[in-house]
Protein backbone atom coordinates (compact mmCIF):
# COMPACT_ATOMS: atom_id res chain seq x y z
CA UNK A 1 0.00 0.00 0.00
CA UNK A 2 1.08 3.58 -0.68
CA UNK A 3 -0.06 6.30 1.71
CA UNK A 4 -0.08 10.02 1.34
CA UNK A 5 -1.10 12.47 4.05
CA UNK A 6 -3.16 15.41 2.76
CA UNK A 7 -4.29 16.81 6.10
CA UNK A 8 -2.83 16.10 9.55
CA UNK A 9 -4.52 18.66 11.86
CA UNK A 10 -7.38 18.23 14.27
CA UNK A 11 -10.23 20.60 15.19
CA UNK A 12 -9.81 23.35 12.60
CA UNK A 13 -7.44 24.21 9.77
CA UNK A 14 -4.50 26.30 10.94
CA UNK A 15 -2.51 27.53 7.95
CA UNK A 16 0.33 30.00 8.40
CA UNK A 17 4.08 30.41 8.73
CA UNK A 18 4.19 28.59 12.12
CA UNK A 19 2.61 25.44 10.65
CA UNK A 20 4.20 25.49 7.20
CA UNK A 21 6.30 22.33 7.49
CA UNK A 22 3.71 20.00 9.02
CA UNK A 23 0.81 21.74 7.32
CA UNK A 24 -2.48 23.26 8.40
CA UNK A 25 -5.06 21.08 6.65
CA UNK A 26 -7.45 18.89 8.64
CA UNK A 27 -7.57 15.10 8.51
CA UNK A 28 -7.25 13.28 5.21
CA UNK A 29 -5.07 10.30 4.26
CA UNK A 30 -5.12 8.60 0.86
CA UNK A 31 -4.21 4.92 0.63
CA UNK A 32 -3.63 3.23 -2.72
CA UNK A 33 -3.16 -0.50 -3.09
CA UNK A 34 -0.69 -2.08 -5.51
CA UNK A 35 -3.58 -2.89 -7.86
CA UNK A 36 -4.89 0.69 -7.76
CA UNK A 37 -7.75 0.53 -5.24
CA UNK A 38 -8.16 4.00 -3.73
CA UNK A 39 -9.26 4.33 -0.12
CA UNK A 40 -9.39 7.69 1.61
CA UNK A 41 -9.44 8.06 5.36
CA UNK A 42 -11.56 11.10 6.27
CA UNK A 43 -12.42 14.22 4.27
CA UNK A 44 -11.09 17.19 6.23
CA UNK A 45 -9.78 20.25 4.40
CA UNK A 46 -6.92 18.11 3.03
CA UNK A 47 -9.52 16.37 0.86
CA UNK A 48 -9.57 19.45 -1.42
CA UNK A 49 -5.90 19.38 -2.49
CA UNK A 50 -6.24 15.57 -2.81
CA UNK A 51 -9.18 16.22 -5.12
CA UNK A 52 -7.10 18.64 -7.20
CA UNK A 53 -4.35 16.02 -7.54
CA UNK A 54 -6.87 13.31 -8.51
CA UNK A 55 -8.23 15.51 -11.31
CA UNK A 56 -5.05 14.75 -13.28
CA UNK A 57 -6.09 11.08 -13.49
CA UNK A 58 -9.35 9.15 -14.08
CA UNK A 59 -11.32 11.50 -11.78
CA UNK A 60 -10.69 14.33 -14.25
CA UNK A 61 -12.40 12.24 -16.96
CA UNK A 62 -15.32 11.19 -14.77
CA UNK A 63 -13.93 7.67 -14.47
CA UNK A 64 -12.63 7.79 -10.90
CA UNK A 65 -13.61 5.44 -8.11
CA UNK A 66 -12.96 5.99 -4.41
CA UNK A 67 -13.95 4.42 -1.13
CA UNK A 68 -14.14 7.09 1.57
CA UNK A 69 -13.97 5.90 5.15
CA UNK A 70 -15.29 8.47 7.65
CA UNK A 71 -14.02 7.83 11.17
CA UNK A 72 -16.69 10.09 12.67
CA UNK A 73 -18.72 13.11 11.66
CA UNK A 74 -16.94 16.07 13.22
CA UNK A 75 -16.32 18.92 10.78
CA UNK A 76 -12.54 18.54 10.73
CA UNK A 77 -13.15 15.16 9.07
CA UNK A 78 -15.90 16.28 6.66
CA UNK A 79 -15.47 19.86 5.51
CA UNK A 80 -13.41 19.09 2.40
CA UNK A 81 -16.00 16.85 0.77
CA UNK A 82 -18.51 19.39 -0.61
CA UNK A 83 -15.70 21.57 -2.03
CA UNK A 84 -13.51 18.94 -3.70
CA UNK A 85 -13.63 19.19 -7.50
CA UNK A 86 -13.91 15.44 -8.41
CA UNK A 87 -17.06 15.18 -6.26
CA UNK A 88 -18.80 17.45 -8.76
CA UNK A 89 -17.71 15.59 -11.88
CA UNK A 90 -20.34 13.35 -13.44
CA UNK A 91 -19.30 9.72 -13.68
CA UNK A 92 -17.01 9.62 -10.66
CA UNK A 93 -18.08 7.13 -8.02
CA UNK A 94 -17.74 7.56 -4.26
CA UNK A 95 -18.62 4.82 -1.81
CA UNK A 96 -18.84 6.50 1.59
CA UNK A 97 -18.68 4.46 4.74
CA UNK A 98 -19.70 6.47 7.77
CA UNK A 99 -20.83 6.10 11.33
CA UNK A 100 -24.55 6.56 11.63
CA UNK A 101 -27.54 4.74 12.98
CA UNK A 102 -28.49 4.01 9.40
CA UNK A 103 -27.39 4.58 5.83
CA UNK A 104 -30.24 7.10 5.43
CA UNK A 105 -29.03 9.08 8.42
CA UNK A 106 -25.57 9.39 6.86
CA UNK A 107 -27.13 10.65 3.65
CA UNK A 108 -29.19 13.17 5.64
CA UNK A 109 -26.05 14.38 7.35
CA UNK A 110 -24.42 15.16 3.99
CA UNK A 111 -27.65 16.79 2.85
CA UNK A 112 -27.45 19.07 5.91
CA UNK A 113 -23.80 19.83 5.19
CA UNK A 114 -24.67 21.35 1.79
CA UNK A 115 -28.05 22.86 2.78
CA UNK A 116 -28.71 26.37 1.38
CA UNK A 117 -27.89 28.11 4.67
CA UNK A 118 -24.39 26.63 4.66
CA UNK A 119 -23.39 25.95 1.08
CA UNK A 120 -24.14 27.14 -2.44
CA UNK A 121 -24.57 23.47 -3.43
CA UNK A 122 -28.11 23.49 -1.84
CA UNK A 123 -28.66 19.71 -1.97
CA UNK A 124 -26.63 16.57 -2.57
CA UNK A 125 -28.83 15.96 -5.61
CA UNK A 126 -26.76 18.72 -7.26
CA UNK A 127 -23.56 16.78 -6.69
CA UNK A 128 -22.68 15.42 -10.09
CA UNK A 129 -20.87 12.25 -9.08
CA UNK A 130 -22.45 9.02 -7.85
CA UNK A 131 -22.53 8.82 -4.06
CA UNK A 132 -23.29 5.57 -2.33
CA UNK A 133 -23.63 5.71 1.45
CA UNK A 134 -22.93 2.70 3.64
CA UNK A 135 -23.03 2.27 7.38
CA UNK A 136 -19.85 1.14 9.13
CA UNK A 137 -20.05 -1.91 11.33
CA UNK A 138 -17.59 -4.26 12.94
CA UNK A 139 -18.09 -6.63 10.05
CA UNK A 140 -14.94 -6.66 7.90
CA UNK A 141 -15.32 -5.85 4.20
CA UNK A 142 -13.16 -5.90 1.12
CA UNK A 143 -12.28 -2.99 -1.18
CA UNK A 144 -10.49 -4.63 -4.09
CA UNK A 145 -7.48 -6.29 -2.57
CA UNK A 146 -7.72 -4.29 0.68
CA UNK A 147 -9.47 -5.81 3.69
CA UNK A 148 -11.06 -3.22 5.99
CA UNK A 149 -11.84 -3.82 9.65
CA UNK A 150 -13.35 -1.19 11.93
CA UNK A 151 -13.53 -0.73 15.65
CA UNK A 152 -15.15 1.97 17.77
CA UNK A 153 -13.06 4.08 20.14
CA UNK A 154 -14.25 6.59 22.77
CA UNK A 155 -13.95 10.21 21.61
CA UNK A 156 -15.27 12.45 24.37
CA UNK A 157 -18.55 12.31 26.20
CA UNK A 158 -21.04 10.16 24.30
CA UNK A 159 -19.10 10.29 21.02
CA UNK A 160 -17.23 7.54 19.24
CA UNK A 161 -14.64 7.48 16.52
CA UNK A 162 -14.11 4.47 14.28
CA UNK A 163 -10.58 3.23 13.91
CA UNK A 164 -9.76 1.43 10.66
CA UNK A 165 -7.41 -1.47 9.98
CA UNK A 166 -6.39 -1.88 6.35
CA UNK A 167 -4.67 -5.06 5.20
CA UNK A 168 -3.27 -5.76 1.73
CA UNK A 169 -1.03 -8.75 1.10
CA UNK A 170 1.03 -9.15 4.26
CA UNK A 171 0.98 -5.46 5.19
CA UNK A 172 -1.36 -3.86 7.70
CA UNK A 173 -1.95 -0.34 8.94
CA UNK A 174 -4.25 1.04 11.59
CA UNK A 175 -5.74 4.55 11.66
CA UNK A 176 -7.08 5.91 14.98
CA UNK A 177 -7.40 9.67 14.47
CA UNK A 178 -9.43 10.76 17.52
CA UNK A 179 -9.48 8.89 20.81
CA UNK A 180 -9.55 9.57 24.52
CA UNK A 181 -8.99 6.35 26.40
CA UNK A 182 -11.32 6.14 29.37
CA UNK A 183 -9.56 6.86 32.61
CA UNK A 184 -6.44 7.71 30.66
CA UNK A 185 -5.50 4.06 30.32
CA UNK A 186 -5.37 1.95 27.18
CA UNK A 187 -8.03 -0.65 26.57
CA UNK A 188 -7.05 -4.22 25.96
CA UNK A 189 -9.39 -3.98 22.97
CA UNK A 190 -7.20 -1.26 21.46
CA UNK A 191 -4.05 -3.29 21.99
CA UNK A 192 -5.67 -6.30 20.34
CA UNK A 193 -6.85 -4.21 17.38
CA UNK A 194 -3.38 -2.90 16.58
CA UNK A 195 -1.33 -5.94 17.64
CA UNK A 196 1.68 -6.41 15.41
CA UNK A 197 0.63 -4.00 12.64
CA UNK A 198 3.29 -2.43 10.44
CA UNK A 199 2.06 1.11 10.84
CA UNK A 200 -0.11 2.90 13.40
CA UNK A 201 -1.47 6.38 12.68
CA UNK A 202 -2.63 7.74 16.01
CA UNK A 203 -4.20 10.80 17.63
CA UNK A 204 -1.51 13.06 19.17
CA UNK A 205 -3.68 16.12 19.83
CA UNK A 206 -2.56 16.77 23.40
CA UNK A 207 0.62 16.71 25.44
CA UNK A 208 0.82 16.50 29.22
CA UNK A 209 1.23 20.29 29.33
CA UNK A 210 -1.98 21.16 27.46
CA UNK A 211 -4.23 18.16 28.15
CA UNK A 212 -7.90 18.97 28.65
CA UNK A 213 -9.90 16.03 30.02
CA UNK A 214 -13.19 15.04 28.31
CA UNK A 215 -12.26 16.86 25.09
CA UNK A 216 -12.04 13.51 23.36
CA UNK A 217 -8.32 13.35 22.74
CA UNK A 218 -5.42 11.54 24.33
CA UNK A 219 -1.81 12.56 24.80
CA UNK A 220 0.78 11.82 22.14
CA UNK A 221 2.32 9.52 24.77
CA UNK A 222 -0.74 7.24 24.62
CA UNK A 223 -0.03 6.46 20.99
CA UNK A 224 3.54 5.57 21.93
CA UNK A 225 2.37 3.35 24.80
CA UNK A 226 -0.20 1.64 22.56
CA UNK A 227 2.31 1.03 19.77
CA UNK A 228 4.80 -0.35 22.25
CA UNK A 229 2.28 -2.58 24.04
CA UNK A 230 1.00 -3.96 20.73
CA UNK A 231 4.42 -4.54 19.17
CA UNK A 232 3.87 -2.07 16.32
CA UNK A 233 6.94 -1.31 14.23
CA UNK A 234 6.20 2.28 13.22
CA UNK A 235 4.06 5.03 14.76
CA UNK A 236 2.88 8.17 13.02
CA UNK A 237 1.68 10.94 15.34
CA UNK A 238 -1.42 12.47 13.72
CA UNK A 239 -4.25 14.95 14.28
CA UNK A 240 -1.99 17.66 15.69
CA UNK A 241 -3.58 20.49 17.65
CA UNK A 242 -4.09 23.59 15.47
CA UNK A 243 -2.07 25.48 18.09
CA UNK A 244 0.98 23.19 17.79
CA UNK A 245 3.74 24.95 15.81
CA UNK A 246 6.27 23.17 13.61
CA UNK A 247 8.99 23.68 16.21
CA UNK A 248 6.77 22.28 18.95
CA UNK A 249 6.01 19.17 16.88
CA UNK A 250 9.76 18.75 16.21
CA UNK A 251 10.40 18.91 19.95
CA UNK A 252 7.56 16.50 20.74
CA UNK A 253 8.89 13.89 18.32
CA UNK A 254 12.46 14.35 19.61
CA UNK A 255 11.29 13.84 23.20
CA UNK A 256 9.49 10.61 22.33
CA UNK A 257 12.50 9.30 20.40
CA UNK A 258 14.89 10.14 23.26
CA UNK A 259 12.64 8.50 25.79
CA UNK A 260 12.25 5.32 23.69
CA UNK A 261 16.00 5.19 23.05
CA UNK A 262 16.75 5.47 26.78
CA UNK A 263 14.40 2.61 27.47
CA UNK A 264 15.85 0.56 24.63
CA UNK A 265 12.55 0.27 22.76
CA UNK A 266 12.85 -0.12 18.98
CA UNK A 267 9.81 1.79 17.81
CA UNK A 268 10.11 4.31 15.02
CA UNK A 269 8.14 7.51 15.73
CA UNK A 270 7.42 10.30 13.25
CA UNK A 271 4.90 13.10 13.06
CA UNK A 272 2.61 13.21 10.04
CA UNK A 273 2.92 16.20 7.72
CA UNK A 274 1.00 17.35 4.64
CA UNK A 275 2.60 15.58 1.69
CA UNK A 276 4.20 12.76 3.73
CA UNK A 277 4.32 9.61 1.62
CA UNK A 278 4.88 6.09 2.94
CA UNK A 279 5.33 2.90 0.94
CA UNK A 280 4.21 0.01 3.06
Amino acid at each position, binding site marked *: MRLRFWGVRG*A*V*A*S*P*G*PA*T*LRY*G*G*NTSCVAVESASGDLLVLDAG*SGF*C*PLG*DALMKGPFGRGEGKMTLLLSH*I*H*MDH*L*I*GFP*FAVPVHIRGNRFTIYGPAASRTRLEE*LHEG*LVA*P*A*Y*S*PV*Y*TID*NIGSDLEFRRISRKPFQVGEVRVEAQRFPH*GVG*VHCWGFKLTAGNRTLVYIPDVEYAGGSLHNEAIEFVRGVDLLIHDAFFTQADYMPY*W*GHCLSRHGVLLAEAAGVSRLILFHHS*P*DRSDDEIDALVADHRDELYERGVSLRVDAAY*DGMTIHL
Partner: protein
Amino acid sequence: MQVRIWGCRGSYPVSGADFIRYGGNTSCIEVWVGDTLIIIDAGTGMRPLGQHLRSPESPQTNRIHVLITHTHWDHIIGFPFFQPLRDVHTHLTIYGLRRSDRPLEKALTESLSRPLFALPLTSNPARIDFRELDFYTTYAIAPDVKVTTARLNHPYRAVGYRIESPSGCLAHITDTAPFDRILFGDEQVSWSSKDRTLDPASKAILDRMRQGVLDLAAHADWLIYDTQFEPDEYARRPHWGHSTPNHAIGIASQAQARHLVLFHHDPHRTDQQIDAIEGVYRARAAEYGLVLGAAREGLTLKREQTR
Protein backbone atom coordinates in the same frame (compact mmCIF):
# COMPACT_ATOMS: atom_id res chain seq x y z
CA MET B 1 -10.83 53.10 13.43
CA GLN B 2 -8.36 50.29 12.95
CA VAL B 3 -8.98 47.27 10.73
CA ARG B 4 -6.96 44.06 10.66
CA ILE B 5 -7.42 41.07 8.39
CA TRP B 6 -7.24 37.58 9.97
CA GLY B 7 -8.63 35.56 7.09
CA CYS B 8 -9.22 36.54 3.45
CA ARG B 9 -9.63 33.21 1.67
CA GLY B 10 -12.91 32.18 0.07
CA SER B 11 -14.70 28.79 0.05
CA TYR B 12 -12.36 26.75 2.24
CA PRO B 13 -9.04 27.18 4.08
CA VAL B 14 -5.81 26.29 2.31
CA SER B 15 -2.38 25.55 3.68
CA GLY B 16 1.10 25.32 2.22
CA ALA B 17 4.04 27.16 0.75
CA ASP B 18 1.90 28.73 -2.02
CA PHE B 19 -0.31 30.53 0.49
CA ILE B 20 2.09 31.96 3.06
CA ARG B 21 2.04 35.68 2.35
CA TYR B 22 -1.67 36.23 1.74
CA GLY B 23 -2.68 33.44 4.09
CA GLY B 24 -5.00 30.44 3.92
CA ASN B 25 -7.60 31.25 6.57
CA THR B 26 -11.18 32.01 5.60
CA SER B 27 -13.01 35.30 6.27
CA CYS B 28 -12.45 37.12 9.54
CA ILE B 29 -11.78 40.82 10.10
CA GLU B 30 -11.09 42.68 13.34
CA VAL B 31 -12.31 46.28 13.58
CA TRP B 32 -11.65 48.59 16.52
CA VAL B 33 -13.53 51.85 16.83
CA GLY B 34 -12.08 53.39 19.97
CA ASP B 35 -12.80 50.80 22.66
CA THR B 36 -15.45 49.01 20.63
CA LEU B 37 -14.49 45.71 19.02
CA ILE B 38 -16.35 44.51 15.95
CA ILE B 39 -15.54 41.27 14.16
CA ILE B 40 -16.81 40.64 10.65
CA ASP B 41 -17.42 36.94 9.95
CA ALA B 42 -16.23 33.86 11.78
CA GLY B 43 -14.12 31.91 9.29
CA THR B 44 -11.00 29.99 10.32
CA GLY B 45 -9.20 33.32 10.88
CA MET B 46 -11.27 33.68 14.05
CA ARG B 47 -9.12 31.13 15.93
CA PRO B 48 -5.86 33.13 15.68
CA LEU B 49 -7.81 36.35 16.28
CA GLY B 50 -9.16 34.87 19.54
CA GLN B 51 -5.64 34.00 20.65
CA HIS B 52 -4.47 37.50 19.82
CA LEU B 53 -7.31 39.12 21.77
CA ARG B 54 -6.20 37.23 24.87
CA SER B 55 -2.56 38.34 24.48
CA PRO B 56 -1.03 41.40 26.16
CA GLU B 57 -0.41 43.00 22.73
CA SER B 58 -4.14 43.46 22.18
CA PRO B 59 -6.43 46.07 23.71
CA GLN B 60 -8.73 44.25 26.13
CA THR B 61 -12.49 44.14 26.08
CA ASN B 62 -15.15 41.63 27.08
CA ARG B 63 -17.76 43.16 24.80
CA ILE B 64 -17.58 41.82 21.26
CA HIS B 65 -19.86 42.56 18.31
CA VAL B 66 -19.81 39.96 15.52
CA LEU B 67 -21.32 40.86 12.14
CA ILE B 68 -22.14 37.77 10.06
CA THR B 69 -22.46 38.35 6.31
CA HIS B 70 -24.07 34.94 5.74
CA THR B 71 -23.83 31.46 7.18
CA HIS B 72 -21.94 29.60 4.45
CA TRP B 73 -19.34 27.39 6.12
CA ASP B 74 -16.28 29.49 5.23
CA HIS B 75 -17.82 32.40 7.16
CA ILE B 76 -18.76 30.54 10.37
CA ILE B 77 -16.51 27.49 10.75
CA GLY B 78 -13.98 29.23 13.02
CA PHE B 79 -16.52 30.30 15.64
CA PRO B 80 -16.28 27.21 17.92
CA PHE B 81 -12.51 27.76 18.17
CA PHE B 82 -12.70 31.41 19.29
CA GLN B 83 -10.94 31.45 22.65
CA PRO B 84 -12.95 34.29 24.31
CA LEU B 85 -16.00 31.96 24.19
CA ARG B 86 -14.42 30.02 27.07
CA ASP B 87 -14.48 33.13 29.30
CA VAL B 88 -17.56 33.76 31.43
CA HIS B 89 -16.91 37.51 31.25
CA THR B 90 -17.17 37.65 27.47
CA HIS B 91 -20.38 39.13 26.11
CA LEU B 92 -20.92 38.56 22.41
CA THR B 93 -23.65 40.00 20.25
CA ILE B 94 -23.98 38.21 16.94
CA TYR B 95 -25.66 40.19 14.16
CA GLY B 96 -26.98 38.69 10.95
CA LEU B 97 -29.84 38.71 8.48
CA ARG B 98 -33.43 38.38 9.67
CA ARG B 99 -34.97 35.56 7.66
CA SER B 100 -38.56 34.41 7.64
CA ASP B 101 -37.62 30.75 7.16
CA ARG B 102 -35.06 30.38 9.91
CA PRO B 103 -33.96 32.49 12.89
CA LEU B 104 -30.28 33.53 12.90
CA GLU B 105 -29.79 31.88 16.27
CA LYS B 106 -31.05 28.57 14.95
CA ALA B 107 -28.93 28.73 11.79
CA LEU B 108 -25.78 29.21 13.87
CA THR B 109 -26.43 27.09 16.94
CA GLU B 110 -27.78 24.07 15.02
CA SER B 111 -24.77 23.90 12.72
CA LEU B 112 -22.04 24.80 15.22
CA SER B 113 -23.16 22.03 17.49
CA ARG B 114 -23.47 18.28 17.68
CA PRO B 115 -23.07 16.17 15.69
CA LEU B 116 -20.62 18.22 13.59
CA PHE B 117 -18.79 19.81 16.53
CA ALA B 118 -17.85 18.47 19.94
CA LEU B 119 -19.64 21.18 21.92
CA PRO B 120 -22.75 23.25 21.17
CA LEU B 121 -21.80 26.91 20.59
CA THR B 122 -24.16 28.04 23.34
CA SER B 123 -22.74 25.65 25.96
CA ASN B 124 -19.66 27.89 26.19
CA PRO B 125 -19.36 30.06 29.32
CA ALA B 126 -19.56 33.33 27.34
CA ARG B 127 -22.86 35.18 27.10
CA ILE B 128 -24.15 35.20 23.52
CA ASP B 129 -26.97 37.41 22.23
CA PHE B 130 -28.37 37.32 18.73
CA ARG B 131 -29.64 40.38 16.91
CA GLU B 132 -31.34 40.05 13.55
CA LEU B 133 -30.92 42.84 10.99
CA ASP B 134 -32.94 43.98 8.02
CA PHE B 135 -31.52 45.18 4.71
CA TYR B 136 -31.07 48.90 4.03
CA THR B 137 -31.18 49.90 7.69
CA THR B 138 -28.78 51.76 9.98
CA TYR B 139 -28.16 50.55 13.52
CA ALA B 140 -26.28 52.34 16.30
CA ILE B 141 -24.49 49.38 17.88
CA ALA B 142 -22.26 51.42 20.20
CA PRO B 143 -21.65 55.10 20.93
CA ASP B 144 -20.25 56.66 17.75
CA VAL B 145 -20.56 53.38 15.79
CA LYS B 146 -23.22 53.05 13.12
CA VAL B 147 -23.71 49.90 11.07
CA THR B 148 -25.68 50.06 7.82
CA THR B 149 -26.80 46.98 5.89
CA ALA B 150 -27.55 46.19 2.25
CA ARG B 151 -28.50 43.11 0.29
CA LEU B 152 -25.80 41.32 -1.69
CA ASN B 153 -26.25 39.15 -4.76
CA HIS B 154 -25.34 35.72 -3.43
CA PRO B 155 -27.07 32.33 -3.17
CA TYR B 156 -29.46 32.41 -0.16
CA ARG B 157 -28.57 36.12 0.16
CA ALA B 158 -25.79 37.84 2.12
CA VAL B 159 -25.43 41.15 3.97
CA GLY B 160 -23.09 43.96 3.00
CA TYR B 161 -22.02 46.23 5.86
CA ARG B 162 -20.87 49.80 6.31
CA ILE B 163 -19.28 50.59 9.66
CA GLU B 164 -19.14 54.32 10.22
CA SER B 165 -17.62 56.36 13.00
CA PRO B 166 -16.00 59.80 13.34
CA SER B 167 -12.65 58.02 13.08
CA GLY B 168 -13.28 56.22 9.81
CA CYS B 169 -15.60 54.31 7.51
CA LEU B 170 -15.30 50.72 6.34
CA ALA B 171 -17.49 49.07 3.71
CA HIS B 172 -17.47 45.26 3.59
CA ILE B 173 -19.03 43.76 0.46
CA THR B 174 -18.71 39.98 0.36
CA ASP B 175 -19.94 37.55 -0.87
CA THR B 176 -21.55 38.97 -3.97
CA ALA B 177 -21.93 38.50 -7.69
CA PRO B 178 -22.20 41.61 -9.88
CA PHE B 179 -25.63 43.11 -10.37
CA ASP B 180 -26.23 42.63 -14.06
CA ARG B 181 -26.66 39.03 -15.23
CA ILE B 182 -28.13 36.79 -12.54
CA LEU B 183 -30.37 37.57 -9.58
CA PHE B 184 -29.66 35.37 -6.59
CA GLY B 185 -32.25 34.85 -3.91
CA ASP B 186 -33.19 32.10 -1.52
CA GLU B 187 -33.93 29.61 -4.27
CA GLN B 188 -31.11 28.04 -6.15
CA VAL B 189 -30.25 29.52 -9.52
CA SER B 190 -30.14 26.73 -12.06
CA TRP B 191 -26.60 25.54 -12.59
CA SER B 192 -27.00 25.53 -16.32
CA SER B 193 -28.04 29.17 -16.48
CA LYS B 194 -25.80 31.13 -18.80
CA ASP B 195 -26.75 34.32 -20.50
CA ARG B 196 -30.38 34.78 -19.71
CA THR B 197 -32.52 37.79 -20.32
CA LEU B 198 -33.64 39.23 -17.02
CA ASP B 199 -37.27 40.10 -16.51
CA PRO B 200 -37.94 43.74 -15.52
CA ALA B 201 -38.80 42.82 -11.91
CA SER B 202 -35.49 41.01 -11.40
CA LYS B 203 -33.67 43.84 -13.13
CA ALA B 204 -35.27 46.32 -10.71
CA ILE B 205 -34.19 44.27 -7.69
CA LEU B 206 -30.62 44.10 -9.01
CA ASP B 207 -30.60 47.86 -9.62
CA ARG B 208 -31.80 48.43 -6.05
CA MET B 209 -29.08 46.07 -4.77
CA ARG B 210 -26.38 47.85 -6.72
CA GLN B 211 -27.53 51.24 -5.42
CA GLY B 212 -27.48 49.83 -1.88
CA VAL B 213 -23.90 48.67 -2.33
CA LEU B 214 -22.92 52.06 -3.76
CA ASP B 215 -24.46 53.70 -0.69
CA LEU B 216 -22.47 51.44 1.64
CA ALA B 217 -19.26 52.22 -0.23
CA ALA B 218 -19.84 55.98 -0.68
CA HIS B 219 -16.63 57.85 0.22
CA ALA B 220 -15.55 54.93 2.44
CA ASP B 221 -11.97 54.95 3.68
CA TRP B 222 -11.73 51.27 2.83
CA LEU B 223 -13.88 49.10 0.61
CA ILE B 224 -13.32 45.37 1.13
CA TYR B 225 -14.83 43.51 -1.84
CA ASP B 226 -15.39 39.93 -2.99
CA THR B 227 -12.99 39.38 -5.91
CA GLN B 228 -12.78 35.59 -5.88
CA PHE B 229 -12.75 35.40 -9.66
CA GLU B 230 -10.62 36.48 -12.54
CA PRO B 231 -12.71 37.48 -15.60
CA ASP B 232 -12.32 34.11 -17.37
CA GLU B 233 -13.40 32.26 -14.23
CA TYR B 234 -16.41 34.50 -13.82
CA ALA B 235 -17.38 33.82 -17.42
CA ARG B 236 -17.45 30.08 -16.66
CA ARG B 237 -19.10 30.34 -13.24
CA PRO B 238 -21.45 33.32 -13.16
CA HIS B 239 -23.82 31.24 -11.02
CA TRP B 240 -21.37 30.91 -8.10
CA GLY B 241 -22.16 34.33 -6.66
CA HIS B 242 -18.74 36.01 -6.77
CA SER B 243 -17.21 39.02 -8.52
CA THR B 244 -13.97 40.03 -10.24
CA PRO B 245 -11.64 42.97 -9.53
CA ASN B 246 -13.21 44.79 -12.51
CA HIS B 247 -16.61 44.66 -10.84
CA ALA B 248 -15.05 45.90 -7.59
CA ILE B 249 -13.26 48.77 -9.31
CA GLY B 250 -16.54 49.74 -11.01
CA ILE B 251 -18.32 50.04 -7.66
CA ALA B 252 -15.35 51.63 -5.84
CA SER B 253 -14.78 54.32 -8.43
CA GLN B 254 -18.45 55.22 -8.77
CA ALA B 255 -18.85 55.33 -4.96
CA GLN B 256 -15.63 57.35 -4.66
CA ALA B 257 -14.19 55.02 -2.06
CA ARG B 258 -10.56 55.78 -1.25
CA HIS B 259 -8.97 52.38 -0.93
CA LEU B 260 -10.20 49.13 -2.48
CA VAL B 261 -9.16 45.87 -0.81
CA LEU B 262 -9.44 42.72 -2.95
CA PHE B 263 -10.85 40.00 -0.71
CA HIS B 264 -12.15 36.40 -0.61
CA HIS B 265 -9.33 34.99 -2.72
CA ASP B 266 -10.05 31.77 -4.58
CA PRO B 267 -8.59 28.81 -2.66
CA HIS B 268 -6.44 27.85 -5.63
CA ARG B 269 -4.90 31.34 -5.98
CA THR B 270 -1.19 31.26 -5.08
CA ASP B 271 0.79 34.14 -3.57
CA GLN B 272 2.47 34.76 -6.94
CA GLN B 273 -0.88 34.89 -8.73
CA ILE B 274 -2.29 37.35 -6.20
CA ASP B 275 0.84 39.49 -6.62
CA ALA B 276 0.20 39.57 -10.35
CA ILE B 277 -3.52 40.35 -9.95
CA GLU B 278 -2.69 43.15 -7.53
CA GLY B 279 -0.19 44.62 -10.01
CA VAL B 280 -2.59 44.58 -12.96
CA TYR B 281 -5.57 46.01 -11.14
CA ARG B 282 -3.60 48.52 -9.09
CA ALA B 283 -2.62 50.22 -12.32
CA ARG B 284 -6.21 50.11 -13.56
CA ALA B 285 -7.56 51.50 -10.27
CA ALA B 286 -5.01 54.32 -10.33
CA GLU B 287 -6.73 55.65 -13.46
CA TYR B 288 -9.70 56.38 -11.20
CA GLY B 289 -7.55 57.84 -8.42
CA LEU B 290 -8.26 54.74 -6.38
CA VAL B 291 -5.77 53.02 -4.09
CA LEU B 292 -5.94 49.22 -4.51
CA GLY B 293 -4.38 46.34 -2.60
CA ALA B 294 -5.01 42.64 -2.09
CA ALA B 295 -6.08 41.55 1.39
CA ARG B 296 -3.58 39.45 3.29
CA GLU B 297 -3.49 38.10 6.80
CA GLY B 298 -2.01 40.71 9.13
CA LEU B 299 -2.84 43.65 6.87
CA THR B 300 -3.73 46.59 9.10
CA LEU B 301 -5.67 49.62 7.88
CA LYS B 302 -5.71 52.71 9.99
CA ARG B 303 -6.68 56.35 9.73
CA GLU B 304 -5.44 58.29 12.73
CA GLN B 305 -6.92 61.75 12.20
CA THR B 306 -10.64 62.40 12.25
CA ARG B 307 -12.20 64.12 9.31
